[in-house]
């Protein structure tokens, strides 16, 4: 059996291999000679001698899988037959009648047998190899189905390539001719159970870079030249599919080159993944188109929400002011005051809705990017709280945030809108004496901002509807939740336009928690 890892150090292993086969050959031939000797000694007949030797040749060919040993055995058999079993015993006599014929027949038979068994051997190896490859490819297709992002595909490629080649591998992504993403799987000595490290050792880096750069540079010039680039101990194979480059894989070879089979396999594997990369890109493109469609829908649903959400407070304002105008002085002062308070509240509510709508027009469509600036999160949050207190002076909120200054790229006005909306929702829907909690946490490449109220939470069905869908809650309680659908969909739009995510969950023993995360962005 030749597996990838056994074959990788071909020059060293060969000697042991040769020795092995030599031993096999000698043992088998010794047994055959012994058997013949016994037979000839017991029965004084030489009819079976060539048969036994022929059998031994077949066995040796089958075991070693190489012509050399078969032919070697054939020679031995002919000579041994002459030497041991024909008169004069233990001496050569080439003048025996028919000896040249026997020699020729024996030789031809041996060569033919050898050829057949070796061929069978190779066929079996090839079949096993193919089976293994097919199995691997199948396995990989299955895993690729679950890989959504380019990064996941890259990880899969690296892991599989490493497993098959048994060398450290590096992935270089060439975006705008700069390599932005490096990934390395450690040398095979590391225990398999450990998750693969993704660090690039400094000592490897310069060489890789040079080679990878060369490879990609050449790819740029001759796009249909599919040959991998061999360089100082590194094999660089571009991930190419239909004139698109998805990056370059570099296999560290050191002093031992890969054998042809493994290299072909590596190439095949990479080509296979190139298709996966292409599919992933297509999927992303589709997703983008879908998003654009959804945005259109969102805008439509926004308009519907607006007309509904604005009509209700306007009715209140027109009604109340009408009553005051018509009845004037005849009204009780308290009654008049109550109506005026209503008018004031409704008008403020309208104002907030209009601010929401305005912020959406600012985002426009995804293709025109709005201006993002590095802004301190704490300032935006503080201002949001101040704003919200203008409408709800009794708003109680505890703010927890990291000590260090977090500055992330955003449109501060829009993010303030999001935080204000969330606080407003938490205040109005989470009727409770307990303070609202506003938490800011940095989680890797994202900053998470969550607003937790101590209300009764929200029915799962409504959660789905409001936070995942585009519309408002169920129609029957549209009035009690007025503005919620609109406010949330606006928050979602704003957060997603920043490359973040917004989601809500009911927390046992607390209430509703709405969280949004924003990418920290590239370090300057």
């Amino acid at each position, binding site marked *: 059996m030749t597996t990838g890892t056994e074959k990788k150090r071909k020059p060293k292993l060969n000697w042991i291999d040769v020795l092995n086969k030599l031993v096999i050959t000698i043992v088998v031939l010794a047994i055959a000679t012994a058997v013949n000797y016994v037979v000839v000694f017991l029965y004084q007949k030489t009819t079976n001698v060539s048969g036994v030797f022929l059998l031994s040749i077949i066995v040796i060919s089958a075991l070693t899988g190489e012509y050399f040993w078969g032919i070697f055995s054939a020679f031995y058999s002919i000579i041994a037959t002459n030497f041991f079993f024909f008169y004069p015993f233990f001496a050569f006599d080439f003048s025996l009648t028919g000896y040249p014929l026997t020699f020729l027949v024996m030789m031809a038979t041996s060569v033919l047998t050898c050829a057949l068994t070796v061929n069978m051997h190779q066929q079996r190896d090839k079949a096993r190899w193919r089976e293994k490859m097919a199995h691997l490819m199948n396995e990989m297709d299955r895993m690729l189905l679950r890989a959504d992002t380019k990064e996941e595909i890259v990880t899969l490629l690296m892991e599989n390539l490493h497993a098959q080649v048994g060398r450290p591998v590096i992935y270089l992504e060439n975006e705008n001719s700069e390599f932005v993403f490096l990934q390395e799987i450690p040398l095979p000595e590391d225990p398999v159970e450990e998750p693969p490290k993704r660090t690039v050792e400094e000592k490897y880096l310069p060489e890789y870079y040079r080679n990878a750069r060369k490879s990609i540079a050449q790819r740029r010039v001759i796009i249909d030249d599919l040959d991998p680039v061999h360089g100082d101990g590194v094999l660089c194979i571009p991930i190419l599919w239909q004139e698109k480059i998805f990056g370059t894989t570099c296999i560290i070879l050191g002093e031992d080159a890969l054998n042809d089979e493994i290299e072909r396999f590596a190439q095949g594997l990479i080509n296979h993944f190139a298709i996966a990369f292409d599919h992933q890109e297509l999927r992303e493109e589709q997703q983008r188109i879908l998003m654009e469609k959804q945005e259109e829908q969102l805008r439509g649903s926004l308009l519907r929400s607006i007309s509904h959400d604005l009509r209700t407070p306007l009715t209140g304002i027109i009604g109340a002011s009408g009553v005051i105008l018509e009845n004037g002085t005849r009204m009780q002062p308290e009654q008049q005051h109550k109506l005026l308070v209503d008018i004031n509240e409704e008008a403020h509510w309208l104002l907030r809705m209009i601010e929401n709508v305005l912020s959406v027009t600012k985002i426009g469509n995804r293709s025109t990017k709005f201006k993002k600036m*590095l802004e301190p999160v704490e300032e935006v949050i503080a201002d949001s*709280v101040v704003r919200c207190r*203008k409408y709800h002076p009794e708003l109680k909120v505890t703010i927890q945030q990291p000590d260090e200054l977090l500055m992330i790229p955003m449109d501060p006005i829009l993010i303030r809108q999001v935080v204000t909306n969330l606080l407003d929702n938490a205040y109005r829907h989470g009727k409770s004496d307990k303070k609202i909690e506003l938490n800011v946490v940095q989680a890797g490449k994202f900053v998470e901002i969550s607003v937790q109220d101590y209300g009764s939470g929200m029915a799962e069905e409504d959660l789905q509807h409001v936070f995942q869908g585009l519309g408002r809650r169920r129609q029957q309680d549209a009035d009690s939740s007025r503005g919620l659908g609109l406010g949330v969909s606006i928050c979602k739009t704003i957060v997603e336009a920043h490359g973040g995510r917004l989601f809500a969950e009911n927390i046992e023993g607390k209430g509703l928690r709405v969280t949004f995360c924003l990418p920290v962005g590239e370090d300057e």
Partner: protein
Amino acid sequence: MNGNILIIEDEDAIVNVLTSILIANEYMPVVAKDGQQAMMLLRSFQPDVILLDLGLPDIDGKELLKSFRQTHNCPVLVVSARDSEQEKVELLDLGADDYITKPFGTSELLARIRVVLRTRTVSEDRGSVAKNVYCCGKLHIDLDKHIVMLDGERVHLTKNELRIIELLGHNPGKVLTYDYLIKNIWGEDMPDNNRILRVNMANIRRKLEENPAEPQYIMTEIGVGYRMADESCF
């Protein structure tokens, strides 16, 4: 009487609201409905504060502001329905003393008027010792001696932090734009990035504010600049 106020505004509904608020608070309002009238009244009426609406029928409010500034030093409070941070910055740079966005509450309007009136009085009698102290809650800044005290204890600030807080302390209640602060502290040739200012501000807040997440003394006007709490706020 608290002062003469020139209202430059063309919409009757707003004019009605403004005049009734001002009269109720013992100010003396006069209304100009367009730019021409405004320029005339500016000379004859000698207002203490101008409330300027940007959308006028005959001239752009910004142009009017520019021509005011060439001849008069009278404080201008811009009343605008346009809610763009860039525009606010532009107006402040053109020489407006403050701005207020429509719609506004009565108390907000009155507070802003008080601030612009006082800022002017202070800058007019610069030199009087008593005026060069900023006091707000537990914070006490001696602008002449460059000493910042919080709850009776001296606060140690770096040179730049001190300069920022003094600039703001000289103009309590007034928004100072990021640009203005950076140019005054780091000079004109500072690269166009306000990160350094933000970092300094974050440090100041950590030294002065009880809870930097809910500042009491230095407010942020998102996208515009910083505003030191007005003395009358407590």
